[in-house]
Each structure stands twice: as structure tokens, then as C-alpha cells.
């Protein structure tokens, strides 16, 4: 039995210690936000936040997670009450097929938690690990910029437009 702290709640799971967190989230805890993309830590669809850092949950066995804080997409907001970051993704329509978006949002969440006004270069560098095969990167960048602006209205950066025109 391993006790996981997921989105502020303690959850006891019976899965084998080697089981990747992604399988436990989706299979055992029925938190289906994180997606299985490649299973090799190369695409980022499975990204969750652990102790404030973005991590590939497909390559993270639950044996190393005792006592660590796991945040998944479900921990940010809900369909009825999306978080500011989720709202920004909706407002920018930053999805085509949408499969990569939970991972994108979680990686962006880790960035904006640590750095409330990232530069465009910082956003690009930080988001580099996550892939979108539909090619909505510009809208994803715009959404993150929008969320940063919304979280810090006083930061007064000109976001979305400049990105789109590049």
C-alpha cells in the first residue's frame, strides 16, 4: 500500500511500487486529465506537477512519491470553475485535437507558479519539453501569455499579438 497526496487529498493505492504514476492516476484513481502519449518521456502529454516541478508521470514510479505533493489537471479547476490558466486556454482556443493540452497546462502551471511574469523566451524554453502534433503552439504560447497577464495585470506586457505575427 502506497499513500499518494494527489491534489491535496491522501489516496491509498494498492498498485505495484514500480507502476508509473500515469497508470495509477488514470486506472486506479480515475483522474483522466493526464494522457498517455509515448510512454517514453518524450512528448509531455502525461505531464503533472510534483512538488512544484513539471514531471513526466509515465516515467515516474509511485514508489518514489510517498510524501510528495502531486497536482494534476483536476487540481487546477473544473469545467464549471476553470482556473485562470485553464480559462486562458479556452479564451485563446489553444487546442485542436486537445490531446496534449492537459500536459501543456500543467507544465505552464509550474512555470507561472514559480515565475509570474515570464518572458516569451522563458516560456518557449520552459515549454520545449512538450509536443503538440496539431501545431497549435502559437495559441498555446498566447494562452500562457494571457494567463500571465491576467494573473499579474499590473505586469502590463503586450502578449498574444506579437506572438501570432512572428
Amino acid at each position, binding site marked *: 500500500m502506497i499513500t499518494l497526496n494527489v491534489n491535496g487529498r491522501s489516496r491509498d493505492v494498492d498498485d505495484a*511500487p*514500480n*507502476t*508509473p504514476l500515469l497508470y495509477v492516476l488514470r486506472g486506479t484513481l480515475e483522474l483522466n486529465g493526464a494522457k498517455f502519449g509515448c*510512454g*517514453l*518521456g*518524450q512528448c509531455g502529454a502525461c505531464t503533472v506537477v*510534483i*512538488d512544484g*516541478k*513539471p*514531471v*513526466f508521470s*509515465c*516515467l*515516474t*514510479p509511485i*514508489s*518514489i512519491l510517498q510524501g510528495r505533493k502531486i497536482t494534476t489537471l483536476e487540481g487546477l479547476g473544473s469545467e464549471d470553475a476553470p482556473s485562470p490558466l485553464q480559462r486562458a486556454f479556452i479564451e485563446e482556443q489553444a487546442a485542436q485535437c486537445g490531446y496534449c493540452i492537459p500536459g501543456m497546462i500543467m507544465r505552464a502551471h509550474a512555470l507561472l507558479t514559480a515565475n509570474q511574469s515570464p518572458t516569451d*523566451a522563458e516560456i518557449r524554453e520552459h515549454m520545449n*519539453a512538450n509536443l503538440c502534433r496539431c501545431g497549435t503552439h502559437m495559441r498555446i504560447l498566447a494562452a500562457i501569455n494571457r494567463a500571465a497577464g491576467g494573473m499579474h495585470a499590473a505586469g502590463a506586457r503586450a502578449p498574444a499579438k506579437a506572438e501570432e505575427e512572428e
Partner: protein
Amino acid sequence: MAFSLLLIVVLGATALFFATHLSIPEDRSQRVFAPDLVRRGGELAALGYCASCHTAENGKPFAGGRPLATPFGTLFGTNITPDPKTGIGLYSQAAFARTMRDGIDRAGRDLYPVFPYNHFARLTDEDLSALYAFLMTRAAVPAQNPANHLTFPYNVRPLLAGWKLLYLDKKPVPRDQTRSAEWNRGRYLVEALSHCGACHTPRDRLGAEIASQHFDSGEAEDWWAPPLNHKFPSPVSWSEESLFNYLRSWDVGHGGAVGPMAPVVAALATVPEQDVRAIAAYVGATLAKPGESEKRVDEKQPQAAEAHPQGAELYAGICATCHETGGHVPFTVTSLGQHTSIYAPDPRNVIHVVLEGVRPPEGTVGAVMPAFADTLSDAQIADIAAYLRARFSRGGEWQNIEAEIARLRRSTSP
């Protein structure tokens, strides 16, 4: 210590005598170069990896600013674009040749040997002309060189004149008539332009390559640089062909370059094939052990798992996902036991890869491995490293793995 002090006094005295160099007049002439010369210069610049040290991360090519950590302090790659104020725009060809061969800049200042003029001194006149033509036709970028952070006495530049008296060998690379033209070409590239010994030969306490230990292994940016001779420790044998593959992109037996070697391979992928074949012929002749059959690399798995159960468990849960698939993940060799890093005398390279992951240089294809700095603790990474070492190497346990992890975590995190 007394030896060092004595050396410093001797160097100081000689320096006063030799360290007075005249400045070479500014060259403001309109320069015209034949396109073929410029093109050849570009290939040579790639073979000499000029951009590796002279380009900052995400910076403009050749505009300098990259920090280079040495045991004597941190120096910065200089701006070698033709900007007249901050670059080498006012260098005549004679000033350029003196810089490359004598380590003296246009103004007459002695340069630190982190700039490998001990190798470039052996370049031919034709190759120097081509390099000059290439650099002088790059876009001029105004970018001030950051000041070096060197400790005393190494911040006293005139002492370098003494260093050169001791160590600077300007003799051309000799030709060995008993060897092929290709081998001789490779020898020239390796010993002069590509300056392989700068990382792969150990240095003495004054930072000079130890000639008697040529290619015995050295280091680069806190990575271990393996021997390029029969002391190469991995059980996977080299051939000219596999070395060529490795230097050009990736080899099925040895995998791909990581760390400071990755930009070297990225550069070699762009130069004429025969130059890389020549390098492989020269280095391959000392690396390859003819007649030696492949040794088994993975026969100690049960003992390793017993000695390091946590490491084995973590390996199974994390690493095995890609590294036990029989090489079916792109750019991944069949077994981690094929990687030289596991046979190194210290665990630095393994730690670097686990902490930082692997990402091909911008604009190239290659292995992608995620970084585990945020997933794994120092103790967990140490368990994995100890397990890998025990499973594959006969070199004995690594010492102080956890302390090394903590140190590298501090020095590599922004």
C-alpha cells in the same frame, strides 16, 4: 606548493623579458575573398569547433560570451565576428595568424591557453587564410567580451609568456610516410585544427597537456573525456567505421555523443565526409584493438540487483522503459552496458545525463532523454548509478556518488 611558487617566480622573470609584444596596426582595408576560400574556411571552422566556445547559449554565432570554467577561474569565449570595436574587425591577416599561432592578440596581449593555440600553431598557412576569410565575412556583431574571473596569479597575463616558453610547440604536424594519406590527413586535423587533445589529454597543474600521456583521458566542462587510445575502457570495440558513424551522427554499438562532445558531432555532421573519415582513420588506429572479440557486458545482473536493490528497483521502474527494449527506442543502444560513461573512473557523466537529460543540439536529430533532476533525489540517483556500475563494469565501486550529485546539481542548475 613550493614548486608552484618557484615556477611562478621563474615564469615571472622570463615573462618580463618576453611579454612585451608590439601591437599590429589596425587593418581598415576593404577585404575581398574568393567564395571558395570562404566556403573552405567555413568547413575548417566547423572542424575546429570555433562556434562551440565563441557562441553564448542562445547567442549570435561567434559573438562570444560563453563561460568556460577552468581550474584557474572562469574565462569567456571572445567575440570573433568582424565587429571593429568588440570583435576582430581590425585584425589584418598577420594579426590573425599571430593570434592563432602565438596566442597574442592584435594589441599585443598574451592569451590564455584555454584558447587552444598550442594546437592552432600547427595549422598550415592555407588553412589560416581560409579561416580568416570565413570569419571576416561573418555578420559583425557588437558584443563586449565579459571580463574573465581568474584567481591570482593566473590573472597576471604577462606570466603567459613564460607558459608559452615552457609549453608552446609550433612544429608542424609531422608526416608518417609509412601511413596512408588519409591517416596523415586525420593526424593533421586531430592534432592541429580539431584539437582533440584539449579535452582528451590530461593537463598538468599549469593547465598544459601532458605530452607523455597523449589521449589518456581528460576532461571538459566537468565531464570526463574518455581516452582515445588502447586505454579506452568500454567493452564495445571501436573500428574506423563505428568511429566514423559516431563522429558523424550515431553508432549502433556506441550510441551518440552527449555533453560537450554533442556540439563536436553536430559540427562534424556538416563538413566533407572525407575529413571525418580521415579523423576516424587516425584516431581509430589507436582506439581499435584488432583481433579482440566483444566481451560480454551484462552477466552480473543478479549480483548487482542483490547489492543495490533500491537501484535495481528504480532502474526497472524508470530506466528500463527505454533502456530494456532491445534498442527499439530511436537512437537508443541495446544495452546501457554499451555506454562508456559506466566504465569511467568517476560517475560524473552518468550523473550529468540523469540530472540534465539528453537533448540534441539545436537543429540536429538525436537521442532525447528527459531530465530527472526534479523527479529523483540525490540518494535515488546514487542508487541507480551504483547499480549500473555494479551490473556492467569490473572497475570497482564509484566513491562519493551522492556528494558528486549534490555538487553537480549546484553547478549545473541556473
